[in-house]
């Protein structure tokens, strides 16, 4: 399909990319393009310019600190996360990335793109919320870090402001994590999803039931406590062709229990 006319730049440094993004309200960052290019085909979004982040070395790579903290560059692909020895510090990250779409999409799609899209059906927003990840955002004025709980603001909206970039995702060391989803076909788009992390307490993040991940902290990892926490959240998810609101609410409860069971096993 022919896209609307668009400008393109491939900066070689982070500073240059931020300068280009700040110079034009209509400019958007291009990461792996596995969502953005289709959005442009559908004319659901029509940026005036694309700032391709592919040439910026600073946005790549996975580092594992001595204390078990993982630092993941925003342009790291799903395939790189699946293959990474460092990322095995929190094996759930590779396990979930291996479930996203298909080989081709995993080879191009990036963790930063998945998070910045903030699509409620994406896998990584609830996962990063459950893992207690922190996002590093850089703009002309410098760098700031926000917790996952403050990063997602709405459907397609995040704390990354115009002229800023998500540069790095920091995942603390953890003990047990889980993820469960009901998808459209095997490894397709999520109809409902739940991520859980157990470390002393338990944190659950539910996907597809609200504009942003719904984070819950049940009293314990017992099935009953998890179910009760989901019920008390009074979820009111949207209905669509794939699932009614009631069915999604039911799935949220079931998937939360499955995710917690995986996390504590």
């Amino acid at each position: 399909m022919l896209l609307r006319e668009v400008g393109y730049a491939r900066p070689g440094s982070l500073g240059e990319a931020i300068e280009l993004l700040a110079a034009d309200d209509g400019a958007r960052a291009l990461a792996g393009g596995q969502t953005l290019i289709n959005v442009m085909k559908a004319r659901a979004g029509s940026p005036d310019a694309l700032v391709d982040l592919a040439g910026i070395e600073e946005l790549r790579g996975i580092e594992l600190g001595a204390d078990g903290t993982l630092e993941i560059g925003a342009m790291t692909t799903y395939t790189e996360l699946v293959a990474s020895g460092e990322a095995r510090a929190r094996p759930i990250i590779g396990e979930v990335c291996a479930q996203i779409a298909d080989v081709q999409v995993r080879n191009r799609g990036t963790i930063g793109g998945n998070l910045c899209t903030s699509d409620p059906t994406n896998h990584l927003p609830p996962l990063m919320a459950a893992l207690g990840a922190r996002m590093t955002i850089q703009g002309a004025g410098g760098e700031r870090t926000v917790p996952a709980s403050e990063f997602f603001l709405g459907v397609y909206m995040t704390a990354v402001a115009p002229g800023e970039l998500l540069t790095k995702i920091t995942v603390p060391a953890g003990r047990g994590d889980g993820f469960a989803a009901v998808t459209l076909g095997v490894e397709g788009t999520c109809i409902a999803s739940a991520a859980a992390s157990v470390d002393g307490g338990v944190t659950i993040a539910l996907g597809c039931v609200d504009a942003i991940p719904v984070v819950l902290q049940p009293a314990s990892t017992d099935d009953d406590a998890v179910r009760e926490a989901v019920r008390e959240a009074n979820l009111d998810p949207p209905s669509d062709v794939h699932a009614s609101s009631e069915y999604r609410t039911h799935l949220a409860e079931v998937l939360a229990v499955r995710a917690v069971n995986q996390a504590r096993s």
Partner: protein
Amino acid sequence: MSTVTNSRSISVTINGTTYEREVEARKLLIHFIRDDLDQTGSHIGCDTGNCGACSVIVDGSLVKSCMMLAVQADGATIETVEGLADGEELSKLQQAFKDHHALQCGYCTPGMLMSATALLRENPHPSEHEIKKAIQGNICRCTGYWNIFAAVKAASE
């Protein structure tokens, strides 16, 4: 300092031949390959990133060329279905597709072949599950998956 431009001069090596062309930034890689270079082996099925008929290997990595801009491929080495055979001699995988009748209408075949080529290069003896995972991003609407699977398996033995 890099600047924003609506078109760029790119250099791409496809199946061993280097092409230098001026392309619009909005041009998808699949259109560059098919329309600008007249290499029509790679197909456009859905144009939405679902069907995988446009799959090609870019710098060793399998991608859907309808979800990549030609300008993003500047400097890349690309392999398409045209590069699989050696003259008249089919690759082992292509021969296995022929032997196992792994195509009916043939529309998905270029993408299937590239996905299976990428798989066998990385993992010459995949399990049945690995074969199925490897062609997950490729849709065959003749629903001839079983023969495709059998061909990939035969080529891996």
